[in-house]
């Protein structure tokens, strides 16, 4: 079994929803679609207040090379384009769409019976340009959480030849099971999407990396891969951060991406299984990214599960499907517990990058008191990037940008292993991120 070369941790997996099926949620009557659900320039609205829209219609268009379009999952009327509060508490622009009863019923009907727009043979003759255009039109972004526009990553770079496509099915974050459920239930679609990606980026082979704690998914995907000569499965050791881009490429291809470089520098492109699945849906059914699979979980949730949820629905409504908040719910995390972001309110809408909603209890949601560093060196031994977190953290908190930079602060992938393991509960990652800010600031001033 493969793994990355250094560091890493084994947090309790808590995959409560591992064997829960994917349940499609009813379409809401109202959605708030944020214009910025991806890395890059926010999308530009192409509708105005009062417009009638239908399910799947583009409502905001990608405005730059690195940008992505937004589509509506419900038919209805644009009631306003206004500022709403995003999950992080910051204001963000959203297109608000409301459906009436008739539209709602028609949407549910078409959703259950999507019409095939391309047959198997038609899929096989798609050119790389056409596949990229499908991804671009569908507003496809990295659905593992990074939300980088997929069509850009599917374009082979000028100066590197891509020989391998790595599909990330590691799902190394504790609690999250959306990719696991997806691979188990829609293995064929995932593999088919991966094949489309392979052709788009011109890679000779595809390797789907899956952690060994998902035996059923490995079985399903392996069996389907037998039909595809270019695609294989690599079993990975369940260890965090196995799904980190650099770690995954190292584990699967043995190649080490140099500091500051992209996977394409070693001839590799990495996409998530959920992105491959979404590309398949876009190519096969003409469905843009307007829904995604979300794990809603937590130790005190009464009905945790994996849900197919329309984008733009209230996060609070999604939590209600899993049993709702309890009196002792203390923290809501969008994403996994290691890298996810804490939400400040539950009235914000679901966006493309949210793979999970984790509700922690009061007790476990608070940080422990910070103690003095006893130099136990655990942060050094768990750092998957071979950095010295205790040191660069101190450079960050002491605002020593030059030393922070010289000691590799920019290489930090923010996996959080150091903060997780620190027996003194020191906020190592917080300070390292501060150091990154300082370095960026310094660069900005120099370039002026």
């Amino acid at each position, binding site marked *: 079994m493969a793994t990355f070369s*250094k560091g890493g941790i084994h*947090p309790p997996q808590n995959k409560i929803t591992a064997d829960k099926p994917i349940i499609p949620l009813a379409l809401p009557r109202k959605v708030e679609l944020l214009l910025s659900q991806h890395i890059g320039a926010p999308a530009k609205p192409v509708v105005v207040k009062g417009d009638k829209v239908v399910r799947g219609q583009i409502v905001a268009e990608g405005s730059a090379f690195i940008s992505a379009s937004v589509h509506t999952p419900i038919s209805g009327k644009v009631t306003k384009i206004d500022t709403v509060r995003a999950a992080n*508490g910051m204001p963000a622009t959203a297109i608000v769409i409301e459906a009436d009863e008739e539209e709602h019923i028609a949407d549910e009907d078409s959703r259950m019976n999507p019409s095939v727009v391309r047959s198997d043979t038609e899929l096989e003759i798609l050119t790389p340009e056409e596949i990229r255009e499908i991804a671009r039109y569908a507003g496809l972004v990295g659905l593992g959480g990074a939300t980088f526009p997929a069509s850009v990553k599917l374009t082979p770079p000028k100066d590197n030849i891509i020989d391998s496509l790595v599909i990330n099915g590691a799902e190394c974050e504790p609690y999250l099971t959306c990719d696991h459920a997806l691979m188990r239930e829609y293995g064929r679609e995932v593999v088919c999407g991966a094949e489309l990606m392979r052709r788009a980026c011109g890679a000779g082979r595809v390797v789907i990396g899956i952690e060994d704690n998902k035996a059923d998914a490995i079985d399903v995907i392996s069996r389907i891969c037998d039909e595809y000569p270019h695609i294989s499965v690599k079993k990975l050791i369940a260890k965090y951060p196995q799904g980190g881009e*650099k770690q995954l490429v190292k584990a699967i291809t043995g190649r*080490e991406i140099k*500091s500051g*470089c992209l996977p394409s520098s070693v001839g590799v492109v990495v996409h998530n299984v959920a992105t491959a699945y979404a590309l398949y849906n876009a190519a096969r059914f003409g469905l843009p990214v307007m829904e995604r699979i979300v794990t809603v979980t937590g130790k005190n949730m009464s009905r945790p599960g994996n849900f197919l949820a329309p984008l733009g629905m209230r996060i*609070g409504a999604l939590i209600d499907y899993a049993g709702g*908040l309890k009196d002792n*719910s*203390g*923290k*809501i*995390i969008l994403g996994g*517990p*290691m*890298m*996810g972001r*804490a*939400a*400040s*309110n539950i*009235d914000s809408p679901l966006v493309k990058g949210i793979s999970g909603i*984790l509700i*922690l209890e009061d007790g*476990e*949601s*608070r940080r*422990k008191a910070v*103690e*003095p560093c*006893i*130099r*136990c*060196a655990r942060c*050094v*031994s768990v*750092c*998957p*990037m*071979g950095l*010295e977190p*205790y*040191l660069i953290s101190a450079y960050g908190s002491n605002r020593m940008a030059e*030393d922070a930079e*010289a*000691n*590799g602060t920019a*290489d930090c992938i923010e996996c*959080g292993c150091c*903060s*997780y*393991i*620190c*027996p*003194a*509960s020191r*906020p190592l*990652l*917080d300070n390292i991120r501060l150091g990154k800010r300082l370095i960026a600031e310094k660069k900005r001033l120099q370039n002026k």
Partner: protein
Amino acid sequence: MSKILTVSLPPHIHAPGSVAACMWRVNLALLPAFGCALYFFGLGAAIVTVVSVLCCIFFEYAITRWMLGRTPHIADGSAALTGFLLALNLPSTLPVWTVIIGAFVAIGIGKMAFGGLGCNIFNPALVGRVFLLLSFPVQMTNWQLPGVDRLAYTDAATGATTLQLLKSGAVEASDIDLWNLTFGAIGGSLGEVSAVAILIGFIFLLVTKVITWHIPVSIFVGATLLSFLAGINPVIELLSGGLLLGAVFMATDYVTSPMTGKGMIIYGLLIGTITIIIRCWGAYPEGMSFAILIMNGFTPLINRCVKPKRFGAAGRAVSA
């Protein structure tokens, strides 16, 4: 919404460890050695240990509260650990007043003068021990005969340690009973008597992942290699004196040892060789304490020069 949510930066989960857990585990790992000391030296061992631990706790509390004006964290077990380690490095016949001075130097000068937990350069317990050794050489080398008169304290019957006998040429290496060296019927400091008791503690610390193998094993390797080169029996060198106690419990002190595996190995090898150098060619029969303190002083330099291999680094890692 009425519910107040906690918002903080990731990661949102934390390993179930704490500074106190580390410290108390080391204290726990010292119990077999302490049990042996009680068995062989009786009352004296009990008095020295209790006085040392209580005084270290008191001095840390007093200095933190009344001199620095901060909140003391006695429950983290680090002061108790310093006291425990100091006691295990003292002879069982040491008078109470000397132990009190040792505890004051260990905590006051060795630890608090540098800023308290995590800031000291030298191992506090060893600072205390070496201070006593240099200041009170007679009392500090008054080794009670093991298992003879367990109710005696400062008036106990005494004899020389194995290393002293070897140094003075009173015995030949071939006459030394390795069985007694292993199980503890030998004169020496409280914690130096039984190799087996210390190895039990070592295994406990490894299994509970409080320490890694790097430092102790490289000390053993360094000492063995130089013993071979010097033409002396490495088994006797490893089992006698404070080498085992030092390698497992003193050199592995987090605060004063290097931060990377490679650094730890360099540090350990040098401690092992310096110890044997002092034993063979130095003025003292035992050199473990000095070797560790010397290498404590080099730890910042090792940390600066020996960096972990960075993922994706083009060449050698750049040091600040």
